[in-house]
């Protein structure tokens, strides 16, 4: 089984988002970056589990600059065999998908994993775009996967429940919670990761039909109104008359 996992880099989940002085950018000062949790905890670990069961390889790919090498090495420490970094600006989803597609089109991966979404820009776009560019079936929001030969049986989230889908390799999936359990890299993995190949390639994709033209922070909440626990009638009245939600 030849597997590929697409990794994005995101700010750590406790990051307080601040804007730069003129409000034109997100302030990256003091921000810690991690592998996108959906990619690391679910997609990557499921791919490694499958490799452990049936053999083959797990390659990881990231589109971004050299500062991403640290988090890519973490994926190698968790158990990926080798890595590709496409040295390009990842700010446009279609550009990212094209960069990945161009680099993997000829490689013949059986399963290509993405995360459900990057937790920074919450796009949920790259996986579907990649599937279309590679003309492959795509199963979004996978929470469980069994593989038997070339047939995968995948459970995925749908509105108000789940459904089970059968698909043949090759295909693309996006990983949601449940697909696997987070793994912490051990010392041996960390040592080995330093010697595993991380190939840097360039990209001539230039896609700019969608651009961020500005940022804002959500308007702050007004002060919380504390209600006397002995007076739930008052809370109900406020919910009905002031907030108008009941």
């Amino acid at each position, binding site marked *: 089984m030849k597997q590929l996992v697409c990794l994005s880099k995101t700010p750590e989940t406790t990051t307080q988002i601040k804007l730069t002085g003129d409000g034109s950018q997100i302030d990256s000062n003091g921000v810690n970056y991690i592998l996108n949790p959906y990619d690391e905890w679910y997609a990557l670990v499921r791919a490694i589990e499958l490799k452990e069961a049936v053999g083959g390889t797990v390659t990881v790919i990231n589109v971004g600059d050299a500062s991403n090498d640290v988090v890519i090495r973490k994926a190698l420490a968790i158990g990926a065999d080798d890595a590709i970094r496409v040295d390009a600006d990842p700010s446009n*989803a279609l550009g990212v998908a094209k960069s990945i597609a161009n680099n993997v089109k000829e490689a013949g991966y059986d399963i290509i994993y993405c995360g459900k979404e990057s937790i920074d820009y919450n796009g*949920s776009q790259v996986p579907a775009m990649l599937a279309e560019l590679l003309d492959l*079936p795509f199963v979004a929001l996978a929470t469980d996967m069994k593989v038997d030969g070339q047939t995968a049986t995948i459970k995925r989230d749908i509105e108000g429940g789940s459904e089970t889908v059968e698909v043949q390799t090759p295909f693309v999936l996006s990983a949601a919670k449940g697909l696997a359990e987070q793994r912490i890299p051990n010392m041996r993995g960390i040592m080995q990761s330093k010697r595993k190949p991380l190939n840097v390639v360039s990209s001539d994709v230039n896609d700019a039909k969608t651009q961020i*033209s500005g940022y*804002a922070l959500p308007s702050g909440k007004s002060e919380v109104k504390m209600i006397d*626990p002995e007076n739930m009638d008052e809370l109900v009245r406020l919910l009905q008359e002031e907030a108008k939600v009941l």
Partner: protein
Amino acid sequence: MVLVFVENSDGKFKKAALEAVTYGRKTADLLGSECHALVIGAADNAGELGNYGATKVYQLSNDNLNSFDSQTYTQAISGVANDKGASTIILSNNASGMALTGRLAARLDAACVSGANALPTLDGSNLRIKKNIFSGKAISEMTLTGEKKVISVTGNSLKPETIGSPCEVEAVSVDVSAPKSKVISQDKQTGGPAPLPEAELVVSAGRGMKGPENWGIIEDLANIIGATTACSRPVADTGWRPHHEHVGQTGVAIRPNLYIAAGISGAIQHLAGVNQSKCIVVINKDPEAPFFKAADYGVCADLFDVVPKLTEAIKKAKA
């Protein structure tokens, strides 16, 4: 023309689908264009989508589209868009929307925004659209250039409005290949309250509940107002509640009108999934619980005492 892909749930249209139609109509008005809707499969009263702003409905039936497959649905939607001259495609940002939005954008080589939470504004011939980023911790404004645009709309970002009247339904056909994935079973909750992403009222509880056997008071409160129940992540992780109830950064992100949280501390990852709620009520016995800072109304007390009292007070107000 603006084409809205309207999700068909066993012949019916859910609120999210109607919201997308209203969003489509308002976008079409902005562009000085028309809003048409596309329905796949049989649906009663497809013409009633006109009430929400469509001026024409295309109805497409094809055996290859009998169950959902992102590849064939993308062929179908982009096929109709091309045949009928649609430049902008609008969908709901839900499970099927997530599987389609990016595919459509790649196929049409279009500008794309997923999870729009406000109507677009015009900037020359470009559209500007706001969406939440960093799980609601910031908002970005996107500029979409180029002729073709694909937009998915977050649920509860606007209300479906009756701004039109029933319209013509035209049967259409397009070539679609045989699907390469097959849905073999579905497990959907039937009846009961709305699924979390669509719910307007949500009652949620966390580790402060001490154990799954105590959830009766949460369910009573939810039942009395017709709310959907939710929980924090550790509660789902330890199996006290089913996984689909987990809200937050790594669970479902919701934006109901009312979110009542009992025995949840309000960790930043939890808030990330619920801070878009219109009104937040927090019940916690710890006055320092961070959730109070994000709340509209707070009750600092033992939830085992307060939650039943709140249920009683609502019963009384309703009587």
